[in-house]
């Protein structure tokens, strides 16, 4: 069937670099049935389903106890809240949010600005004697792990270990990951779990100002979070905030290099980074699709009935290019009035870390734009990772003529 082949072609690695024409084809059938899975790709329908209580984020393999097949949860721990439904989802997220943002913890994210910007400065300073770097390995990768470590309160000397675990977990997200990778993931997961448990214990005895201390000493006013849930949450923050942010920064640099006028404007007006990042989240979103939701009941949508028990895939990136919602959707235009993109999802699972992701990406892209002299792409398109849901370049080689000192020095 021609229709089946659209989704198959989207999954096909050969189309990773530019899936957007295929998404346009996909949108012709807003709810497409492929091998028993229902693929939803139009804006209105995706938004509807993100807000539909008949849809569950619980995964069968979590319930069955076989353990999640990707890095979002740790072996032997309850699934993290990204894969739970209300009321558990709401309770755990609420307790976590209490210590992440206002009103109780208003300064947590903004307070990381100084440290993050130092890291960014340091990474770019390191380019000084080079004319070619890989934006992924040399720049985007180190940032998010450091950010999460600072957030959780992982001591700086332990960061390198954390980095290894993070890499092992993230690698396993890839659907084609082999058995060895999966084994490494389980090992890393167990080590990470033991490490976090120990750290939590230490913070319980002697709290410091970090998120882990706050979580472990929470007074339960908003509901209780068990120690196991706490560990699941901490590792979720690590995994959910890692690859995604790497990809957004990398996609950002790639898009700017493909739109030199925008790069120029950003250089002249640093304030533009705000609308620019929002448009990036629409135009090249790191999370292209939410692969697996489950219908708890029959759902009528766009003339189709999704039957109870069916797996649903919400293609955020296709919805964000839906001309029915965004005029001229294939144009990269930070001046777009409508920023109601789905880059961070929507509904109750809306990205928990969005404020931090925005802060990191803004700092990263502003710094790259203002400091690299005459940057250019070495290869276009760059090589992509296998993963279709968390899509991004594996490497992004760029060349430049020099590195300017950080602005204001």
């Amino acid at each position, binding site marked *: 069937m021609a229709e089946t082949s659209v989704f198959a072609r989207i999954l096909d690695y050969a189309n990773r670099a530019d899936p957007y024409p295929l998404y346009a084809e996909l949108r012709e059938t807003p709810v497409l049935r492929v091998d028993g899975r229902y693929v939803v790709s139009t804006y209105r329908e995706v938004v509807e389903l993100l*807000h539909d209580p008949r849809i569950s984020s619980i995964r069968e393999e979590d319930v069955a106890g076989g353990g999640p097949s990707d890095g979002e949860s740790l072996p032997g721990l309850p699934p993290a809240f990204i894969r739970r439904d*209300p009321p558990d989802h709401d309770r755990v997220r*609420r307790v976590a949010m209490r210590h992440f943002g*206002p009103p109780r913890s208003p300064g947590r994210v903004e307070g990381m600005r100084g440290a993050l910007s130092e890291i960014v400065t340091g990474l770019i300073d390191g380019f000084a004697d080079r004319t070619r770097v890989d934006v992924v390995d040399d720049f985007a990768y180190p940032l998010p792990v450091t950010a999460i470590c600072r957030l959780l309160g992982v001591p700086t000397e332990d960061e390198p270990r954390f980095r290894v675990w993070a890499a092992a977990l993230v690698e396993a997200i890839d659907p084609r990951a082999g058995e060895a990778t999966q084994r490494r993931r389980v090992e890393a997961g167990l080590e990470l779990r033991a490490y976090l448990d120990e750290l939590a214990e230490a913070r319980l005895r002697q709290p410091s100002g970090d998120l882990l201390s706050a979580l472990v000493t929470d007074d339960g006013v908003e509901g209780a979070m068990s120690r196991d849930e706490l560990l699941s949450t901490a590792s979720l923050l690590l995994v959910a905030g890692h690859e995604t942010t790497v990809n957004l920064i990398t996609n950002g640099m790639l898009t700017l290099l493909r739109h030199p006028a925008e790069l120029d404007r950003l250089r002249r007006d640093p304030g533009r980074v*705000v609308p620019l990042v929002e448009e990036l989240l629409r135009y090249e979103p790191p999370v292209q699709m939410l692969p697996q939701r489950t219908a708890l009941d029959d759902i009528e949508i766009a003339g189709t009935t999704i039957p*109870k028990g069916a797996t649903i895939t919400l293609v955020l990136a296709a919805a964000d290019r839906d001309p029915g*919602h965004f005029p001229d959707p294939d144009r990269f235009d930070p001046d777009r009035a409508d*920023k*109601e993109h789905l880059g961070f999802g929507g509904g*109750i699972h809306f990205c928990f870390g969005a404020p931090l992701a925005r802060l990191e990406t803004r700092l990263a892209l502003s710094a790259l734009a203002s400091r690299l002299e005459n940057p250019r792409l070495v290869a276009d398109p760059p090589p992509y990772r296998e993963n279709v849901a968390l899509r991004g370049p594996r490497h992004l080689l760029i060349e430049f003529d020099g590195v300017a000192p950080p602005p204001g020095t």
Partner: protein
Amino acid sequence: MRVVVDLTRCQGYGQCVFAAPDVFAMPGQESLLYDPDPSDEQREHVLRAQAACPVQAIHVDRLAGHVPGPRPYPYPAPDSAPDRGDGFRRSGRIVIVGASLAGVRAAAVLRRDGFAGSLTLIGDEPHEPYDRPPLSKQVLTGRMPLEHTTLPRLRDLDAEWLLGQRATGLDVAGKRVRLADGREVEFDRLLIATGARARPWPNEAEAALDGVRVLRTIEDATLLRRRLASGNGRVLVIGAGFTGSEVASVCRELGRPVTVVDRGPAPLAGALGRVIGGIAAQIQREHGVDLHCDTTVIGLDGDAEGRLRAARLSDGTTLEVETAVVGLGAVRNVDWLEGAGLAAGVWGVGCDAGCRVFDINGVVTDDIFAAGDIARFPHPAYEFQFLALEHWGNAVAQAEIAAHNMVSDQTRRWAHLALPVFWSSQFGINIKSVGVPTFADEVVIAQGSVAERRFVAVYGYRGRVTAAVTFDQAMWLEFYQRMIERAAPFPPDFAMVGRPAEMLPVPAEVPPRVAVAQGATVVVTGHDPGERRATLVRRPQ
């Protein structure tokens, strides 16, 4: 700079609070409070908040900007096509009476959509137009200065502002509005947006006691704020509707003792029915409100200096009170339309779904429109019954429809079919509703937990869903909105997340939909179709 958050759209994602914590605040789970007039130093933060809002609910410096997202109902994009060829868009004269939310929003939409003729706004309040919801919330607690309630961007509307001027009459045939000072203002098309005022305490002598207050205007809020900030005696709230309940909530936040008295069985019962009202009653009591339901205030007593001293209740209680807030609902501002021959009365101003006003015979007029709290319009989703809503979101949406229709020929007219959405913020809880909860015979808790004060209540009428109310669960509201639009069967009996163990519909116990025309009757005279006329007969209330 000016900020308006469309709280009917807001789903409590809190992204704005992260971006601009000095401007936006979310003290509870999802009730958003904000300062509509932040200092210019906040600009960068506010723009970040605006960009980050996942539902694009934040408007900066204007009231009629781009409306994001799919419209709540299908209609064409604003067109600049010429109208009937009479050049009205270029040189017509539009007069808007009532310069508050609906009037100002209509003016902004008219300009946005290319109306270049003359635009006059007549308003009897002397101030620049302002937003009312904060008056019973941030303003009353003192979190936000009163001046900050001003509505955004009015100067560049290129309109003539007749503020502090009261319209006293309307000559429909002569197309003239009479002002209190005797002036007359001519129009080609008129928008009636005179809203409502607070219903005063019926006993005039008691109402005049120092300490007896209503809450509708900026003056009311100033005086009440002053009393709440300075005194420490008991506050009596008469009437536990939304405004009364919000005032009670503010009193508790300020640590003031407060007694709430309501004639009905529970707070908010008039709007949400007795079942959900019962939950509101528990919440009030948990917060230390001394709540008396099924009770009336039979008298207010003053001291020798005319200061409020005590209140006598029908349950035999006499209370010493320092301040009484009269929250008995609103009276529609139709007095100036007396004798104009329009379908205007205590029910408001009758109009069609395109906002065109009916004359007293029920025939639609061509050039007179109504929007906001004053308008009473038929809604197809509610068996074409006429609804009169006192909702911020309705004023904004209906004003847009009215403005559009005022400058469009009949083939391009829009209908006001948006479902009513309302929000209220009290006792730290964000209460939202979609649909018409009083249009119900049964109600069921469909999601969440009443004990945790986080739930969705769904209302049904004769086996279909007609409304939903959320307590701190606003993200689900859209789902139920679609169920109402699709006339989905009630009770909703599908499997879903957060579904309580038991889902038992119970009688909604909403108030009977009383004849709104109490005190006024229309009689029809004449036999020939060309002669039949309706006449309004006034009876003393």
